[in-house]
């Protein structure tokens, strides 16, 4: 079971800051295991979406060159404290994870 997504959405005036921590190894496929010398296969999040009110706000496509356990920060208008923000990712092995958070006042 993939690690949960950490989401924090804070209202800042008329926009909302959405901080997303995707907990994932983000293996490039170029690294070798120290002991065996075998290549470690690529394992990375290839797409994720951020949505609210049933609509997609952000659609992201990623490559292996995104850091391990990466943090993303976005800002959006049209959200209010109490609204739910949903983040869903899928990786190159077909694993998936989705989590939600509530927008809070600053």
């Amino acid at each position, binding site marked *: 079971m993939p690690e949960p997504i950490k989401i924090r959405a804070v209202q800042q005036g008329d926009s909302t800051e959405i901080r997303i921590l995707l907990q994932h190894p983000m293996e490039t496929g170029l690294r070798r295991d120290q002991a065996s010398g075998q290549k470690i296969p690529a394992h990375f999040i290839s797409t994720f979406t951020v949505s609210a009110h049933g609509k997609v706000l952000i659609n992201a496509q990623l490559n292996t*060159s995104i850091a391990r356990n990466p943090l993303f920060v976005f800002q959006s208008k049209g959200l209010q404290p109490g609204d739910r923000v949903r983040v869903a990712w*899928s990786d190159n092995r077909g694993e998936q994870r989705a989590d939600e958070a509530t927008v809070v006042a600053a």
Partner: protein
Amino acid sequence: MSARHTGDDRLRRLLIKSTAASAAVGALCAAGLLKPTRVLAAEWGRSGFAATSLPEALKAIGAAASAESGAIVIKSVEISENGALVPCEVISSIPDTQSIAVLVERNPMPLAASLSFAEGVLPRVRLQLKMAESSRIRVVVRAGDGKTYHASREVRVTLGGCGA
């Protein structure tokens, strides 16, 4: 008011299109014709991520002839001691920014991320890159009229991030 309507229409069309496409894919999956991971990989490869050189990647995302723009701000460190985690912030002031693509020019696969924004989302993002060696970070912005713009910024890396 009219600008808002066109924006909504565009998003609606996009959603309708993607819904229809995923319904079709879903049907094929159910019929056992396609494996979900395969479909995703094919989709992903087409959009320039598999490209191994900057010109190839730019061509794949349709940005081979983008115009340099001062309306894109790239914030990052000047020197990074650890290429495994290079923070980067991109802010676009280009009107009607639809998407932001981030490329690390000298990485084995330059295209690092492609982000598209619905109306209401501010055209800015903070993310964390891996960098194999010192390189320019190039950002490509696509506007609503289909035109592409770019800006770049040099980041020096003292310890590469490919082995990390």
